[in-house]
């Protein structure tokens, strides 16, 4: 994986794991890969993964059981909240970028709705 040079790597990996949780690739109660395995997957220092798991734990998205490993939270509400939060972030980013390109709110809405409808027809 190519990392963005502006952000600490542990944050970028946190983001990938959040994506896996929200998309259902990792489900509530699932065991996360061991620190070493994930370090190999991303080719990063094991302590970077350790930090990433600690931060995810602080956000109550994962929990650690001594000797057993790290697991995705079983609190489905928390996952739902995360999903909404990530959607807001993505949308906010998109809107800001579109505004920078000079689009007015109504135009942005039209572009999105046209796009979604076109997708719908394709399927």
């Amino acid at each position, binding site marked *: 994986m190519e*990392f963005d*040079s*502006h*952000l*600490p*790597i*542990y944050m970028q990996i946190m983001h990938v794991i959040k994506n896996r949780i929200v998309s259902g690739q990792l489900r509530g109660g699932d065991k996360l890969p061991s620190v*070493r395995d994930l*370090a*190999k997957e*991303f*080719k*990063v*220092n*094991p*302590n*970077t993964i350790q*930090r990433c798991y600690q931060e995810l734990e602080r956000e109550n998205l994962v929990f650690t059981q001594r000797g057993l490993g790290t697991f995705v939270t079983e609190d489905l509400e928390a996952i739902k909240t995360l999903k909404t939060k990530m959607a807001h972030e993505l949308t906010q980013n998109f809107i800001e970028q579109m505004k920078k390109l000079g689009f007015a709110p109504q135009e942005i809405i039209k572009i999105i709705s046209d796009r979604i409808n076109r997708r719908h027809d394709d399927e």
Partner: protein
Amino acid sequence: MNKIVEIKNLTKKYFTKKALDNLSLEIDAGKIVGILGPNGSGKTTLIKILTGLLRQTEGEVFIDKHKVGVYTKSIVSYLPDRNFLYKWMRIEDAGQLFKDFYPDFDEQKFAELLAFMKLEKNMKIDTLSKGMMEKLNLSLVLARNAKLYILDEPIAGVDPVARDQILDAIINNYHENSSMLITTHLVRDMENILEEVVFLKEGKIVLTGDTETLRAEKGKQIDDIYKEVFASEEE
């Protein structure tokens, strides 16, 4: 935290030229530290002092609380930047050599590393490609249960597949009770596995720190910081 390496005011002079100039550095257990710098910055001199191949002019060096000597040589596993095996050998002979030399050489670990690197123990040394040679040397060095691993340019001149295998082997071998010191020019390929970096210029540390913190502070990857720090050298 337990310190594996403690270097205090280290100076090494070759006649009047200072290869290391009043350098101080500490490495905690469980850290992978990158020593970054162009040719002639003092990396090799530093490694040679840590491995006991050279003596310092001034200053003190402790590895696992001991001055460099017989004990420290038994707990330091060193990957030189050139080949150190005889051409007539097969891989298994190289393993035997290490077993004879180092009591902490773990044959089981060596066999696992060879399997991981897809090397066969009956292969002859002089038939190995550069990448295979590098993988063999690293397997030998990592198969020791050492406290300090010193890897001098571990991925120099190997193809991307071999490079990934080498990085995986390094991550696999990571242990919280031992440390690794890695020198490299290939900052881009290595920076993500380094927890701390030390920029060495003309025998002095010009910048050092936690890689994630440096990246966040400067808003750049270590490779770009490296280019910035050493740009004047290239001109």
